[in-house]
């Protein structure tokens, strides 16, 4: 009896142990070739990408796209279990140098897509050293939203914003023209200052911030806060968006305009309704330009069997048709696929933000192509912008010292490339 008890105990233990090693069977039961696709669309835009994937899967007898939407999708992609990945343009250079992605030219050719199907900004967004490593999906530039109750027409330059700030300040000391964040979207603010001053930050493979003209441009941000009072100081994380959503009546600092990411469109639309205006990035510095980031679709370097390659081409062919890619535009993103842009123009109400942001594609400056772009920007994002918007006594000399530190850190990051 005792033996039986021990035997049962052991069997149960072994079974539990053995089962702990099992994973759900994720191989295709349908006999279709699976394409494993990972992206980071965990917000509202995720549903629109899912619709494209689902539509493709229902149209297919041969291939099936298995989609994963993960917040840490880059980390998961590095595990090597995925064939397709949505990649930001700022990461293409790094992933190409680390040999994690491959040339998408042959896939585009098989899908009957060519570079001429995209506008110039799109082609640039997917290129590394003049070769396509990502099929351009969209560009999400720094976008201007404004409150029509406070400003009737979209401001186009800094002078107009300054005048707006002065009139708002005269009305209520908690009202400002726009807000500069302490941290958050500061990469876009750094790159737009460079683009609007015609400065190329990339030098010899790393980001060099020590250009005196660039320091002057950044000091203009400081002046916007502490001299012109067009922006409140110390707004904190994502302060540009938060201040646009606040109300001066609640003793909060409120702005009439915000320069932020287009992904906040649903939130600002919900708050302002018909009073919401959308415009292109005004000229804060010397010349018209906007920056931001772009999504592309990249293929894992490990993909080498013909069936998977054919499946990827088939999926790209399906996705890059105006009626399918328009789903993505509906999420607020702006595709760079010319035929889709034409479709969007026909229905500006349905694709309000994408349609408005089309204008910005002409003045869009891609981010510098350097190894580990985000890591090279880390010191600037975490230290420098906080000082620019928070330290009233900051001088250009102080700033230059910080820019030298940031450049040194960027060079050290660039040197980690093998």
């Amino acid at each position: 009896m005792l033996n039986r008890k021990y035997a049962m105990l052991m069997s149960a233990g072994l079974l539990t142990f053995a089962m702990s090693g099992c994973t759900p069977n994720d191989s295709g039961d349908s006999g279709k070739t699976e394409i494993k696709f990972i992206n980071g669309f965990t917000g509202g835009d995720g549903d629109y990408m899912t619709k494209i994937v689902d539509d493709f899967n229902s149209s297919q007898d041969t291939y099936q796209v298995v989609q994963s939407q993960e917040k840490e999708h880059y980390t998961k992609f590095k595990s090597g279990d995925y064939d397709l990945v949505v990649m930001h343009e700022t990461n293409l250079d790094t992933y190409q140098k680390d040999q994690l992605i491959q040339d998408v030219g042959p896939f585009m050719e098989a899908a009957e897509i060519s570079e001429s199907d995209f506008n110039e900004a799109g082609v640039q967004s997917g290129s590394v050293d003049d070769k396509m490593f990502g099929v351009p999906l969209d560009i999400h530039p720094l976008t201007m939203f404004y409150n029509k109750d406070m400003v009737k027409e979209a401001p186009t330059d800094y002078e107009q914003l300054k005048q707006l700030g002065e009139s708002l300040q005269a009305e209520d000391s908690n009202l400002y023209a726009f807000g500069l964040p302490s941290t958050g979207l500061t990469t876009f603010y750094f790159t737009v200052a460079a683009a609007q001053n015609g400065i190329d930050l990339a030098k010899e493979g790393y980001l060099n911030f020590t250009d005196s003209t660039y320091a002057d441009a950044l000091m203009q941000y400081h002046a916007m806060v502490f001299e012109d009072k067009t922006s409140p100081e110390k707004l904190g994380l994502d302060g540009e968006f938060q201040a646009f959503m606040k109300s001066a009546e609640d003793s909060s600092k409120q702005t009439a305009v915000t320069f932020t990411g287009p992904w906040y469109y649903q939130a600002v639309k919900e708050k302002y309704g018909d009073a919401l205006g959308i415009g292109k990035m005004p000229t804060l510095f010397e010349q018209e330009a906007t920056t931001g980031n772009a999504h592309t679709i990249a293929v894992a370097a490990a993909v080498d069997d013909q069936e998977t390659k054919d499946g990827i081409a088939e999926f790209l062919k399906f996705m890059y048709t105006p009626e399918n890619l328009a789903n993505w535009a509906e999420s607020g993103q702006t595709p760079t696929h010319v035929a889709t842009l034409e479709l969007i123009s026909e229905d500006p109400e349905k694709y309000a933000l994408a349609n408005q942001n089309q204008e910005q594609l002409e003045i869009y400056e891609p981010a510098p192509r350097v190894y580990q772009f985000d890591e090279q920007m880390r010191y600037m994002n975490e230290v420098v912008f906080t000082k620019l918007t928070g330290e009233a006594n900051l001088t250009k000399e102080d700033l230059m010292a910080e820019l030298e530190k940031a450049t040194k850190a960027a060079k050290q990051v660039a040197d980690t490339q093998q």
Partner: protein
Amino acid sequence: MYMTKRTKWIGFLFVIPFLLSFLIFWLTPLLYGIWISLHDFRLSVGNNGFIGLKNYVDILTPDTLYNNVFMNSLKNTLMFIVLSVPPLILISLGLALLIDNLPKRLKTFFRTVFFLSYAISVTAVSALYLWLFGANGGFINNLLLNTGMISSPINWTGDQPYAWFVIVIATVWWTIGFNMLLFVNALDEVDPNLYEAADLDGASSWNKFRYITLPDIRNISIFVMITTVIASFNLYGQSLLITRGGPSQSTSSLIMGIHATVFGNNQLGVGSAMALLMGLIMMVITGLQYWMSYRNNKEETESGKSEKKRFTRATNVGPTNVSSRPATTIEKKERKVT
């Protein structure tokens, strides 16, 4: 007890689950971590070969990329330990003492209430404290402004020392329940006769706490202190979500630094070396705490019968100061009668 070969084997079978768990979840990851730290291991491209102690040298060489990350985040983490450990121990002990003196029904209720916050995720806690301490329109700022206590809003999460203040407050609120529960259980174990005897000898509340309660919960206090220091070393969620490591990387913790090195820079080898160094530092600090508490305990034991001595202290410094040794209740009664 006579052990046959068979019973020995059966006994061994019962140990197997522990041995397997120990091997799989402790020893193997540790050895693998050490092995990775000795290689140029990238998260992106994998292992590029054995490089000996180079990762450790890079971390410990001043003014290198990894040295800056490690030293800055180590300094911040130590600062957090200094700021957070005292309130995490003292406030939880205070709460436990309050609860210990409540009627039984209320005791259960408040013990549950104070422990509830421990069950909340760090994301929810951080969201709550971001809303409370928001620089622009946050609840606390609005309250202080509307009551005229401040004339301009405080940048709670973007200026020091406020940023540390918010992180410490959030941590105390979030985790205090765990320490409190340990103290409540320890207080339950204190012999009530000691209090009764001290009461009869007229010892004050403070003296009872100092010479009866504290020595009796000494072991659990050491345990709470060691585990609180270890938990504070692992600061991550609060500083990531409330301050994003700012202002100017001043609240960036060791785990944040390791995370950035591994997942941002792809340097799994360097990150593993950082994690092992962090583990070593934690071991040294924990060892020191243990050694100091052991030494104090030994000194006390050697210098006399500790139980008797502390009772004597409690009564000697009490207002009546009538006895030099623990008196039984009967003796006291007799003394009163005479």
